[in-house]
Each structure stands twice: as structure tokens, then as C-alpha cells.
């Protein structure tokens, strides 16, 4: 049996039932990581991974009570703080930084018995859709190494697909979990904004960021989300909404799906349309209903996203200044030079681009035209989308327009890259939860993803719908 093909729940069961030792499991994953080094998905393998596994085996040997996911190994995106470990945000500016505290999600996973194998590659400061912009070098798609894994959680997605861990954690600000999940044929969810605490996540866009799991199956996803969710006194934006067992849903016989006219318009000529058409047809055959609706402001998603996220990012990244815990320029003669030179030398191009853009949209004279306007449009868009959920269970749309693109193919114009987010940003802007599930193959047999969206805090319904479609696609009967 290939232990590395197993998911979170299966692995936990095997270990707890003493059918396999935690050390065996971890060794198998470490072997894979080494074997698939060329992916560059894992930027650091923790030295204590094996010793942590042995500790778990000791507990089991002594028949001590075990935590729910005791011994399950995960890899964590490089922007989530694990105490005592480096957290670099894939930036050479952050090479000296060692996390002085655990992110809340890490604490919760620890409390559930999870062990951490290492850090996953990402786009620098979570700004990117291809994980080509990392100080650790380009990350590769697990299924075709000539292609990107997507971004910014490219390493997290690639690692799951290549069986380098049971599951991983990523972060999603404009699609950074879902798009790479789609490109690698794995499951990735962006929870409702406020569902998961952001304390210990290096902030990109505070009002859009959420942490979420990338997994091999839906049950793992639901379980991990349940564990990391909940009100956190350290995060004023985290929600008091009750956290349930998201996998304990009652699956319906048929569902009502919402299809957005503007999305339809956008995909009418794309090469992957037949795949989505066939899915809709199969659902219809099962008796599901489709409701068509228009989101008037859909085409404003990208501009809204790039105005709001860059504005918040420019402020959040101010603290990286060469004065403390970042790499200070060797050529700085005074405070101003420390700032200017360290930041110029430390930040990558894309990060600088977004910092400048963010400063511009917040600047006096432009604030009203850009930031303020984007805020108002955000409210309007949110109203438009949440109203749709009154007449359907979930909204369906593709995760990405196409399969993973070739590395380097979107290099010339940054806006080409920004168009990757075209179907994903709406969930971040409106705060609703969204999951991407593998839904078929495109050219060269590469994976495609389908997004399911529900209203805020309806993750249980989300998993129910996702499972329904997932079962159908896998050929099982719901």
C-alpha cells in the first residue's frame, strides 16, 4: 500500500489502529519530497519532522489517549507562522525572520495532533497566480513540470497532488487556494471571511485574506476546516458563528444551481467549455434545476479586487522596512536609506508594483476615485451575489478559464496574470465561501476545477453540494 496516497482521515485511522506507525508514514512522505525535489514545492523540510513522528509512536505504544488527528503530517504555506520556524513569505527580504509565536490555525492543528513536515512554496507575499515569483525559485505543477502550479499557494497545491503530505494549508486573497487546487487536480476551499482566524497569517489584504486547507478529498477538507475555524480573541474580524461538523450534512436528491450570465458570456468560446457543459448536462439529468441570474457588476470584480487588495497591502507591508527582522541593505547610511535601499533590494518586482499601486489609490486626490469607490462597489456587488442565494442552493462556475499554463508564458504583461483571478475574486470581495473541486480534464489531460459558492457561513451546505457533484463526477450514485 502506498501510504502517501492516503488522505488525512484514512492516515489517522491507520496510525491510531496501529496498522502503520507514524514514523513509517512520515518517512514515506519525506522520501516523496526528496524524489520530487524538482517540483520545488517544499522549501524547507523541518529537521524535527521525524522526531515528532517518533513521539507520536511513543504515545501510541504507551496506549496514551490520542488526539483526533494525532500523527497526521501536513505542509504549511510559507506565510503562516509556526513558532520557532522560519516564515519567509517567499521573499528574500524575510530571510532572517523566525516566527516568535504560533498562528492560531497552527495552534488548533497542534491541539488536534497534526505534525508539520515543512514549508510550502508560494508567490512572494502571496502576490501572484503562478508561484513563479518566489525567492526560492519557481514551483512546478505536480502533473506537468513544464507548467505552473498556480498561485499564490502553488507549493501547497502541488505538494498535495504529488503526495508530499496528507494535506496542506494555503491562503486565499483573490483565488490563491482555489486556482492552484484547480491546476493540480486537488480540493481547495476559501472559507467565509471571518470563519478562520488570521492571527499569525502574514497579512496581504486584511479584509480579503482567509486561510484554508488543500486536500486529496472532501472529507479531509471538511474535517480540517472544522478544526481551524472559530472565533479568536486575537482577531477582531473572526466570527462568532458556530463551527459545526461540516461533513455531517444531509445530502439532497437534487439541488438548485445558480449560473451567472456574465460568466457564461466569458466562457462561451473557451476551449474548456465542453467540460463544463457536460457537467451541467449530467446534473440536469439527475433532476437538478438551473437558475440563470445576472450580476451586473461582475466585470468590476478584477478592478475592485486590485484596488482594495493593493491598498491594504501597501499599508500591511509598511512594517517590512529594513529596520527590524527584515534584511537591511548593506549600503544604507541613514534611516531614509535604510528604508529606501532595503525595501528596493528586498522586495520583488510584483510586490513593488502592487505597493505602488496601493499607495496611489489611497493617495490624497485619488482616494475617492479609487479606494472609496471600490469600497462602495464592493458593497453593491455583495448585495447582488447574496441575493442570488435566495433562489438557489449554490452558484457554480469554473475556477479558471483553462488548464495550467506554461511556466514563463505570462511574463510580459502583469495584467495577463491578473486575469487568472477572473472567476475567483468574487468570493473574496463578497466574503462568501468557495470551494474548487477537480471536475475533468482539459488539453494534455490536465486537470480543471469547478467552483461551488454558497452564502456566508453555509459551509455545511457547500460541502453537501460539492460532495454531490464530486460523487456524480466520480461515477458513484449520490
Amino acid at each position, binding site marked *: 500500500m502506498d501510504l502517501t496516497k492516503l488522505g488525512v482521515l484514512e492516515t489517522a485511522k491507520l496510525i491510531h489502529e496501529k496498522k502503520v506507525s507514524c514514523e513509517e508514514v512520515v518517512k514515506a512522505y519525506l522520501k516523496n519530497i526528496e524524489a520530487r525535489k524538482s517540483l520545488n514545492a517544499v522549501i524547507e523540510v523541518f529537521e524535527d519532522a521525524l522526531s515528532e513522528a517518533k513521539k507520536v509512536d511513543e504515545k501510541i505504544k504507551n496506549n496514551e489517549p490520542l488526539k483526533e488527528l494525532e500523527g497526521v503530517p501536513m505542509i504549511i504555506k510559507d506565510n*503562516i*507562522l509556526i513558532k520557532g520556524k522560519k*516564515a519567509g*513569505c517567499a521573499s528574500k527580504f*524575510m530571510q532572517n*525572520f523566525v*516566527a*516568535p*509565536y504560533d*498562528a492560531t490555525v497552527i495552534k488548533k492543528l497542534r491541539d488536534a495532533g497534526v505534525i508539520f513536515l515543512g514549508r510550502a512554496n508560494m508567490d512572494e507575499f502571496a502576490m501572484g497566480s503562478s508561484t513563479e515569483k518566489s525567492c526560492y525559485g519557481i514551483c512546478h505543477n505536480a502533473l506537468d513540470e513544464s507548467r505552473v502550479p498556480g498561485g499564490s499557494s502553488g507549493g501547497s497545491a502541488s505538494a498535495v497532488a504529488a503526495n508530499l503530505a496528507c494535506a496542506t494549508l494555503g491562503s486565499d486573497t483573490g483565488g490563491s487556494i482555489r486556482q492552484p487546487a484547480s491546476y493540480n487536480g486537488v480540493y481547495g476551499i476559501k472559507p467565509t471571511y471571518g470563519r478562520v482566524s*488570521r*492571527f*499569525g*497569517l*502574514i*497579512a496581504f*489584504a*486584511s*479584509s480579503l485574506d482567509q486561510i484554508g486547507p488543500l486536500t486529496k478529498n472532501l472529507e479531509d477538507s471538511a474535517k480540517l476546516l472544522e478544526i481551524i475555524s472559530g472565533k479568536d*480573541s*486575537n*482577531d*477582531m*474580524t473572526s466570527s462568532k458563528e458556530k463551527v459545526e461538523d461540516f461533513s455531517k450534512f444531509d445530502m439532497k436528491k437534487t439541488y438548485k444551481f445558480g449560473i451567472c450570465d456574465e460568466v457564461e458570456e466569458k466562457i462561451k468560446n473557451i476551449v474548456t467549455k465542453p467540460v463544463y457543459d457536460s457537467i451541467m448536462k449530467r446534473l440536469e439529468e439527475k433532476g437538478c434545476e438551473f437558475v440563470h441570474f445576472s450580476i451586473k457588476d461582475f466585470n468590476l470584480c478584477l478592478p475592485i479586487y486590485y484596488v482594495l487588495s493593493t*491598498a*491594504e497591502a*501597501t*499599508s500591511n507591508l*509598511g*512594517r*517590512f*522596512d529594513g*529596520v*527590524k*527582522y527584515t534584511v537591511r541593505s548593506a549600503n544604507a547610511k541613514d*534611516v531614509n536609506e535604510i*528604508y529606501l535601499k532595503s525595501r528596493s533590494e528586498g522586495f520583488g518586482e510584483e510586490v513593488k508594483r502592487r505597493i505602488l499601486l496601493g*499607495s496611489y489609490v*489611497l*493617495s*490624497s486626490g485619488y*482616494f475617492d476615485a479609487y*479606494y472609496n469607490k471600490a469600497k462602495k462597489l464592493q458593497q453593491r456587488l455583495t448585495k447582488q451575489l447574496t441575493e442570488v442565494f435566495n433562489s438557489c442552493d449554490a452558484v457554480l462556475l469554473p475556477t479558471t478559464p483553462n488548464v495550467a499554463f506554461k511556466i514563463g508564458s505570462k511574463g510580459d504583461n502583469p495584467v495577463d496574470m491578473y486575469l487568472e483571478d477572473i472567476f475567483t475574486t468574487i468570493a473574496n470581495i463578497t466574503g462568501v465561501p468557495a470551494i474548487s473541486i477537480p471536475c475533468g480534464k482539459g488539453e494534455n489531460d490536465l486537470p480543471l476545477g469547478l467552483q461551488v459558492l454558497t452564502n456566508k457561513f453555509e459551509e455545511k451546505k457547500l460541502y453537501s453540494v460539492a460532495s454531490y457533484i464530486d460523487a456524480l463526477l466520480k461515477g458513484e450514485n449520490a
Partner: protein
Amino acid sequence: MKDYEVTIGLEVHAELKTNTKCFCSCKNEFGGEPNTHCCPVCVGMPGALPVINKKAVELTIKAGLCMGCDINDIAVFERKNYFYPDLSKAYQISQLVRPICLHGGVKLDSGKFIRLNRIHLEEDAGKLVHKSETIGTLIDYNRGGVPLIEMVSEPDMSSPEEALEFLGKLRENLIYADIAECKMQEGGMRCDVNVSIREKGQKEYGTKVEMKNINSFKAVERAIKFEVERQKDILENGGTVRQETRRWDDVLGESSSMRSKEDSKDYRYFPDPDILAIEIPRENVEKIRKELPLLPAERKEKYMGEFGLSLYDTNLLLSEKVYSNFFDECVKLYNKPKSVVNWIQSQVLSLIKDEEEKEIKISASNLTKIIEMLEKKEISQQDSRTLFAKCWEEDIDAKEFAKSSGMLSTLSENELEKIMGEVISENPKACEDFKTTPDKVMPFFIGQVMKKTKGKANSEVVRKYFTEKLK
């Protein structure tokens, strides 16, 4: 020289008296080893998030109520973005568009009302410590994140005296309501001054100049006076005053330009997405209002009006919150304000007026008991002083001690009569002399009675008795 009108506005910052900082649970305490009252939040570590200190919001509301402000029902926090090493996050969490308090003001003794524009809550920055050339500058983040209220006045003041009075009354209110300690020498209260002048009769205000680095009341006065003269000079010589920010140097007694309007920074304010808008329910505001203590202006009215104290005594009591609170406590227990203030003035203040920390070491209970016993003639003047000193030094009960030490012996009428009778029978010659020169002999009789009663007799009663008996 022409006649000029002066216009002054003040921006005052005061550190709030909370246990912990504005957005984290680090200690809010002056001093301490550098960087020991710090955590990932106030040091601006990646991934750290602010959590609002409710007490800081309450104290801001309290300050607003003291100054008659309107309290907003929703308050928003904004990020003020700029780079400086003492600002760990490269932004200060402050308030702009929807501060907690708006309007309000302070009435001066002359009756003139100085309006406030707003009072808002924000966090303080750390401190830069400039060391040698080789070491450079070090940063201490202990003060970073300490809650501050910023109180902005309208440009209603027309003289340095008015500015000082306004500042003083603001400070008094904050101290009395236990909102801030306002120790200027510890940076507990800071003041920026805006000054402009215009020719008398001119409608438009002159160009406003902002002055910073003013660290004491005296410096406020000196800075304003200097600036007015500097601007007058410019205008008299046909020049125009530049709109700028100037740094006051109290040692040199002059100001120098820091930055002009053209160099002014764009702070790119926007609502902080880590802090959702704060709701301030009316019931909370009313609760705080109910718990407000009487402020100096109100106490002055009460002391002079209801209690009939003199202006001198009133000002003395109000010169320190400790005195006033102690006085109030005493009067609650023993409703003789004039007696109480006399004792506080003559006995209490003489002991502590030169101390830095004004600690009243006698309880209100003990002091009022002593005054009562004295006024009821249960103890003598001398004993009352001894008793006071004893209560100041030791933790005893005044009445108990008076009893056990024999100070307190109530003289019954019979006992007194008996003693007075003794004095008469023991001094036949004096009785004879009394018939002719009563005024000369009376003091002798009173003295004798006092000797026998250890000073406990009521001299009026004695006088009456002898007068009647020996007529």
C-alpha cells in the same frame, strides 16, 4: 507697530490611565527596561492583529462627557500611514472621519468658552534613544501602543494666558475624572500649538503656524509669545508668514522650521480593516455619565456656594485632586466643611505640601472623629494635635486610642460643679478679690479649673458658674 489680534489653537495628547495598551494586553506603565512591555502586536510583527482595549474606549467617552462633547454612536478607526522607526507597523491606528467624541469645550474663568473640535482615541509610538555615533539610535517600543486621546481645540484662544488656562482646565478634568495622570515630564501630556496673527479689524485669519516639541506649561507660554513676536516682525517688515511646522527649542527659547506645507505628508488614511467599526450604545454612555465624579468647576461652585468656603480655601482644596477627594470624604462623614477645611489646611497640608507624592496618611474617618471630639469638648486642643500625629503615623482608630490613653474623659456636669466648688473653697482670697476685680481674677479661676480637669472644661460654663456663684 500696528495692533494685532492673536489666534491660538491647541492639539493636546494625553496618555490614558489603562492597565494595558490600546490594542494588546501589554502593560501600560511608564519606564521599565526597554522592550519589556512588548508583544508581537505592539511591535508590529508579521501576522499580528490589534484587539481594541474596551477601557480605553470608555475613558475616551468619559473624557468627552467631561468636556461636554457629543459621543458618536459608531466610531471608526483609521490607519495613518507613514515611515518612522518609532512606529512599528509603519502606520498609527488613529481616528479621522468618525471619532468617538465631537464638539464640546471648556469654559474659562472669564466666562469665555473655548470650543473643542473633537476627542479621539489613538495609539502612541515607541521612543527613539539616541546613543553615540558608533552605536547609533536605539528603539524602545515600551510606549508603542499606549492609548492616547487627542483633544483638538478650535482656534478660540487669543492669548498665551487663555491657552494656559484652557490647558490647565483640560488637565484638571482628566485628573479628577481619573482618565489620565497628565504628567508632562513623563510625556503623559503633550501639546502642539497653532498660532496665527492678523491686524486688528481684519476679517480673515492670518497664516497658521504649527509648533511642536512643547514639553511643559511654561514652554507653551514661551513658545506662543516667541511665535507671536516672530510673526509680527515678519509682517511689520512687509513679509508674509509661511505656513509651516516649527520645532520649539525651550533651551534656546526659539523655534526653527521643521517642514513646510509643500513637504507635508500624505498619510493615506483609510479605515483599518482589522478593526470593525465600534458601536457605542447609549446605555453605555449613560452608565459612564452616572459614574462621573464632580469635576473641578462643579466642585468650586459647591465649595463656595453650598459650603460657603472662601476662594482661597477652595483653590487650595482644588489644587490637588487628593485634597479635594479627601475633603469630600470627610464632609460626607462630618458635615462641617469649614472645620474640615481648617484642619486640612493647617495640619494636613503642612505635612505634605512639599512632597512629590501627596499621600494623606490619616483616614477621613479618623480626622473627622478627632474634629468631632474636639468640637464636642471631649478632648483638648493639645490632645487633638497629639492624636492627629498619632493617627498619621500609626494604623489606629482615633476614638479607641483617645479612650484608652485617657484623653477622652467626658466631664459630667456634676463632676465639673464639684471641681469648681473645690476651686472656690481652695482659694478664699481669690474669691474676695473677685468681688472687686472680676476680670482680673476670672482667668485665674478658669486656669485652676482647667488644671484640675486637664483642660476639659468648657470655659463659658466655668465663667458663668463663677460669675453667678461669687456675685
